[in-house]
């Protein structure tokens, strides 16, 4: 969960434009890096840190958020614009973000005519949670895709949309004899007993359209008390509601002002690409 990647923006492929953009980004973060004593003060770092995803939303939307009030109280000459707040929400050490795309994204979000705001209750953002569980006594990984669901009484809650775990996968069939031959009907399908006797080969007896839906399986394993929770190991938030973009937010715990929940990946994406992204989101490597 704690990211220690150090990757200098300046190591990105250099063009004059990119170098200029990087310098602008660094310059605009000047209030955060200008005085050595600020850096040493862990309490100030705490003020700068994006401590909750809620605080991320507040800064993104330029609300009356903690950092603005802190700066106003301590450095009254500083005025923080929305543009600067948006820039501060990026992980400056991310190897996945191109500065020119970041600036284009910010420009789109911050357009004067129709500035974009994120809502906690949007339906196109998700939490991907990596959890450690015990399955039949052994420690295993479980990935959960979660979203916010609103209820009629005005309340809301987090819900599990999908799960992925290798222990919930139906095993791939390696035995070419595990199938019901085309004349099985002639013996009133008595060969069905093989399906129940060899559950590890069940896929051989299923339609090729069968999709491994793991959530019902998890529910069943929970009811059978075969799975118990240990802890959450990692969380990332995936935002797909900004037109033309996907970005992910992760937690960076470090003794710097650029810390906390920050945008670590930003990619242009159309509707088709967003759909494809969702289909692979729960795969462990994302």
């Amino acid at each position, binding site marked *: 969960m704690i990211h220690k990647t150090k990757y200098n923006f300046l190591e990105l492929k250099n063009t004059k434009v990119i170098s200029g953009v990087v310098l602008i980004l660094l310059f605009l973060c000047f209030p955060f890096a200008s005085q050595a004593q600020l850096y040493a003060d862990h309490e100030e770092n705490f003020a700068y840190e994006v401590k909750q995803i809620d*605080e991320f939303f507040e800064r993104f939307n330029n609300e009356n958020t*903690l950092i603005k009030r*802190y700066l106003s109280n301590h450095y009254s000459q500083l005025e923080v614009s929305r543009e600067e707040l948006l820039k501060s929400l990026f992980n400056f050490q991310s190897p996945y973000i191109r500065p020119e795309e970041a600036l284009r994204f910010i420009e789109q979000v911050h357009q004067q005519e129709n500035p974009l705001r994120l809502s906690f209750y949007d339906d196109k953002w998700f939490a991907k949670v990596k959890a450690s569980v015990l399955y039949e006594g052994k420690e295993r990984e479980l990935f959960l895709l979660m979203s916010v669901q609103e209820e009629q*009484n*005005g309340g*809301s*809650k987090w819900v599990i949309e999908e799960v992925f775990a290798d222990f919930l996968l139906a095993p791939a069939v390696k035995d070419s004899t595990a199938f019901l031959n085309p004349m099985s009907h002639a013996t009133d399908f008595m060969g069905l007993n093989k399906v129940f006797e060899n559950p590890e080969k069940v896929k051989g007896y299923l339609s090729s359209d069968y999709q491994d839906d793991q959530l019902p399986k998890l529910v069943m394993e929970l009811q059978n008390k075969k799975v118990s929770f240990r*802890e959450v190991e990692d969380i990332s938030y995936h935002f797909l509601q900004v037109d033309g973009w996907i970005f992910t937010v992760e937690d960076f715990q470090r003794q710097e002002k650029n810390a906390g929940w920050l945008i670590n990946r930003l990619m242009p994406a159309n509707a088709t690409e967003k759909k494809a992204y969702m289909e692979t989101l729960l795969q462990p490597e994302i």
Partner: protein
Amino acid sequence: MNRIETNKFRKPGGWKFLLSGLLILWAAFPVLAQVEPSVKAPTAEEMNGEATIKIDPELYSQKALQKTADLGTYLAIISDRSNSMAEANKAVELAVDLFINEDAEVEVSGPEGRNRYKVRAYLNRLKLLEYDKIEISWTDISYVSDLKKGTDGNYYGVITLQQRFKGFKDNEVVYGDVTEKNIEVMVVPYQKAADGVQQQKWDVFLSDVGVVVTKFDQ
């Protein structure tokens, strides 16, 4: 959508921390006498999950931070070996009353990793710490989130703050750290009859306490 705006930049009463800390050093009992016992969480009959309530964001913030401050005070009393068992037990009960119920969990971090304890078990463990006494204080800056209404009609928020911990043995600091913590809070609306009239009330209770990270050893 029910959203409650809150003032996120709150100082949790710095002078109150200092005063409480000094009193802990000199005499625990006067601190117990001065700290007002919390109101217990309302009963199921008193709760009114569907009622529309107005929660003043400033007041919510103040109450939430005050309860957090009270928790720190009780933790110090519980773990101070100079206090009697009766005083420590009383502080345990007062601390439990700060929480929505005894199912709330407190996460702690240590060399072996993280563990979670139900609140009463956590508080009782404090009596077994190796220190003669501890000091717990919260740094001045805290983040108080907006409240969000849950499907049960209660409102949920979080306070993120930094806890300074010092463990003393023979009046010397033998361990110190700063830990960033998330304290889930619940605002519970309920109705109370007073003079035959049903009044809409609400109160703030602590819920799960999670560790974000232990920042550094002092």
